[in-house]
């Protein structure tokens, strides 16, 4: 068991920048393309993923001594599915309008590779507290990615943020189209790469 030596702050910062789920690890791309057309969607789905990630990480690191290694992947899936059901029902009850906008994506958090990967790589080898902070880092990293995409697309597409008009014109209406998510992710990834090449 390779217990991590990183401090809690480092764990959070890793998830936010150097191991950012969307732009660096290129995992869970579906929501990044599908529903990043507004900042609000990004924040809500980000919160949902954050909660699922933190709760599943804690659950797995609590139960890690009782899970037989051969059935660990199905166990992870079931734990994630349980927490997704909880979040799904909570969102449907308290924010029905936004829940409808996100559509099927809340339920599909189960299939996001990022959560299973963090459980496999981190939570099953570390105690509860570092697992909690790792979950927080990954969840906020995902939210950061979604909000970045949402900001770029909403600002360029509608000239406003969070539904408020800022500049009065619509610079590039193209970016509000659902399929512009592909282009947007491609451009932002290229910017990340160029930063890496230059420095």
């Amino acid at each position, binding site marked *: 068991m390779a217990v991590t030596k990183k401090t809690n702050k480092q764990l959070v910062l890793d998830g936010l920048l150097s191991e950012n789920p969307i732009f660096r690890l290129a995992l869970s791309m579906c929501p990044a393309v599908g529903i990043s057309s507004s900042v609000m969607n990004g924040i809500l789905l980000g919160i949902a993923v954050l909660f699922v990630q933190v709760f599943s990480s804690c659950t797995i690191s609590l139960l890690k001594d009782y899970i037989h290694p051969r059935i660990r992947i199905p166990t992870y899936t079931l734990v994630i599915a349980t927490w997704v059901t909880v979040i799904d029902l909570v969102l449907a009850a308290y924010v029905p309008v936004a829940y409808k906008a996100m559509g099927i994506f809340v339920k599909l958090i189960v299939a996001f590779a990022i959560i299973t990967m963090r459980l496999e790589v981190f939570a099953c080898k570390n105690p509860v507290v570092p697992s909690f902070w790792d979950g927080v880092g990954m969840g906020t990293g995902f939210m950061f990615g979604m909000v970045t995409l949402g900001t770029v697309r909403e600002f360029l597409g509608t000239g406003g943020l969070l539904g408020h008009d800022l500049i009065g014109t619509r610079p590039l209406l193209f970016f509000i189209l*659902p399929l512009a998510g592909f282009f947007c992710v*491609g*451009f932002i990834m290229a910017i990340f790469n160029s930063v890496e090449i230059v420095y």
Partner: protein
Amino acid sequence: MGAALVLLVVLAGCRTEHRFVKKVTFEKTNDIVITFAGPVDAAWAKNVDNYTVFEKEDPDILLAIKEITLTPDRTKVTLHFKNALNQSRAHTLMIKDIISEGKSQGAAVLTVKKLYLGYLFSILIGAMLIHNFVFTKYLGLCVFFGTSQKRTTAVGMGITFTIVIVFASMLSWFMYQFILKPIRLDYLQVVVFIGLVSLSVQAVDTILRKVNPALFKAFGVYLVLVIANCIILATPLILADKEYNAWESFMLSLGAGTGFLIALFLMSCVREKLELANVPPTYRGLPIAFIVAGLFALAFLGFSGMAIF
């Protein structure tokens, strides 16, 4: 007026087929053709007031008839409507007191529907091209970008995925319709569906290993990846949401699988060419792949709004 409305609703509800009417079908964009068992009275047939037509779901919006034509043998009546009909919906046609050779044959309430096979086929094509899961619903992207580098990998993944998705969707459909819904556990659908998906991946793995080892050697490596694909979970959720029956579910899952195969194949062809192209260093690898996928999505936008049959 109130009584007439109630009568209308009751009549629309019972939709009995009439013994004197052989067939009712849609034709062209705004025609309905009625075939009678015997010759009908010309003056009766040409009277617009004898026919009432509305979409089954909106009984209070009556559709206006522009003109009525009758064939020379007086057995076929064609109703021409002012506006195009939405032929994907069932329509109700009410005919007042049919008069044939001076005798009354009674009133008729008929349902006009498209051919069921055509409807099934339209579900298949819809899931494959018009609502392609990768390019118009943006699902399954991780696996899509991961396995589209080489054409052989892409085809292998696509075929494996199609087999597993049909198997898993039918299993989930059965589970949802006959177990979860009757005992009102439908809020557990996510947990149950993901379990069934893992189960069917494992089942296909075991069966393939025993039955056809050569095929297993070719496609076995992709089986692990299938479970990481959100389409395989999205399809059972959509089926549960839309309350499809067995055949419709089969067609939708087959369409989802082949749609993914088509998307993978197209993308892998482009990415093989991209290997040789002079791409700027910052765009090499995933960024350019995303932009190519965006161009494909733009092309697939051309299918939207298309209706078949």
